[in-house]
């Protein structure tokens, strides 16, 4: 190897080490810049994907389309009414909870988001959505989607890429771990996906169940809320089978959410008002308790 090549190799190694030592904040800044640069292309690719998906769908006659439009409009009107009613209920619920000074977290404050890129990474099961920092999205915010009468857990925000973009780590990824419970049972464990999520719809693994764990196939698996990151009673999936081990048991769970069909999702925003109330309430409580201690 010539001297010049060695010089270039050393320079390359030096620059590489310097880059790998970047602080997370610097990396985040670089990635935000990249996101700004790539945004037009990401949006365009999302539109192309949507257009191609529409091409593949079954062609309808004008009469069928009119009927479908009428049905959709009717459903939309009904849903709008339901949303208004639900908003009122949520507000009332919030007020009641605050009034009762509940220490637990307030009900969900949701924002809707649209999936703009699917699986951008080779090894992580992720999505990119069109909501970001300016929308109040924060790292670790749970992402849900309606599944029947339940809220199905999609995953959590793992990175806020910019003002209007964030990465969702899906439940099917090994690194998205959620405390879970079997419905109508005392059994609790940790649920997570599979490494690389190489299959189209990979099953989930519910680990650390007790050795005696037993439940019929089809039992609902919900979040237990133990870890505080994810609220309780989010629908995770259905039990397929339980394998008993020497120390504990592990269950296979079919995901409740169709991750390939995700278009719109909801993000549970952190309840800042409640957090602030808690923060202000705690010093006050300490201030009240302090004289009592001095009296003792």
């Amino acid at each position: 190897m010539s001297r010049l090549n060695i010089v270039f190799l050393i320079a390359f190694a030096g620059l590489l080490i310097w880059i790998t030592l970047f602080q997370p904040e610097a990396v985040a800044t670089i990635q935000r810049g990249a996101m700004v640069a790539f945004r037009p292309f990401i949006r365009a690719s999302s539109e192309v994907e949507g257009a191609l998906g529409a091409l593949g769908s079954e062609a309808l006659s004008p009469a069928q389309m009119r009927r479908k439009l009428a049905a959709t409009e009717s459903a939309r009107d009904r849903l709008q009414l339901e949303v208004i009613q639900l908003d009122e209920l949520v507000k009332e619920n919030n007020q009641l909870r605050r009034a009762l000074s509940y220490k637990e977290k307030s009900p969900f404050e949701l924002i809707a988001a649209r999936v703009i890129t699917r699986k951008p990474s080779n090894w992580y099961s992720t999505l990119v959505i069109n909501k970001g920092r300016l929308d109040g999205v924060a790292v670790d915010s749970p992402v849900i989607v309606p599944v029947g009468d339940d809220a199905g857990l999609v995953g959590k925000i793992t990175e806020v890429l910019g003002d209007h973009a964030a990465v969702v780590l899906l439940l099917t990824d090994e690194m998205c771990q959620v405390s879970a419970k079997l419905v109508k049972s005392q059994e609790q464990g940790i649920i997570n996906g599979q490494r690389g999520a190489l299959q189209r719809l990979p099953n989930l693994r519910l680990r650390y169940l007790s050795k005696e764990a037993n439940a019929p196939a089809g039992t609902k698996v919900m979040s237990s809320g133990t870890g505080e990151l994810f609220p309780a009673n989010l629908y995770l999936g259905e039990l397929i089978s339980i394998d008993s081990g020497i120390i504990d048991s592990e269950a296979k769970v079919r995901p409740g959410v169709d991750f390939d069909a995700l278009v719109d999702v909801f993000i549970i925003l952190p309840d800042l008002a409640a957090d602030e109330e808690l923060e202000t309430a705690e010093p006050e409580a300490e201030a009240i308790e302090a004289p009592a201690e001095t009296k003792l």
Partner: protein
Amino acid sequence: MKFFGVLISLIALSFILQEFVPVFYWAYGSRLLLVHAVFFAIAVAVPFPAMLGLALLTGFIWDARYHLPIYPPEAMQGIFTQAELPFGFTILIFGLMGLMIQGVRPLFRLGRWELPVFMIGLCTTLSLLIEYLVISFHRGGLEIPAELCWKLLMTAMFSSLISPFLLLLLNRLADRFRYRIRMKGLKRRYTYDGDAI
């Protein structure tokens, strides 16, 4: 110099086109890694220092766009502070693979494309395999399911299929910008090549 400017533009274009490449779920979630294929094709056509420079540039942009800060459990205990795949890891991968692929450069300069085409596919697969092994190292327990092998094989196949077109494009661009890639016989073994005709 013009040719290297064109190569940088080609890499930028590959990043844009990569956004439009879908994931093939029928192929175990594999896809055409266009940026990798373009870089490896360029790596076989340019001298060593240029390859290193382009590895730095391509890897940096790739990580800026696709790096995910997924931290291993050890990070919570303060043992590691880096993500599973640290920012800049792709630069290392591109550098290493570029180094390997430079080994078949003399063949490419003689007009033999069989091995370079194979190497582009192999290097793409090796890049993915190294990433997977690093992730497995962090998480513990090496799992090599059949789906993983299929995914790597399919990715290699996609890269190998597109690489002849990329090599042809590079040859055409080199002709257009008066840059010499091909030479009949390696007479000047210890001097730099790629100088303007």
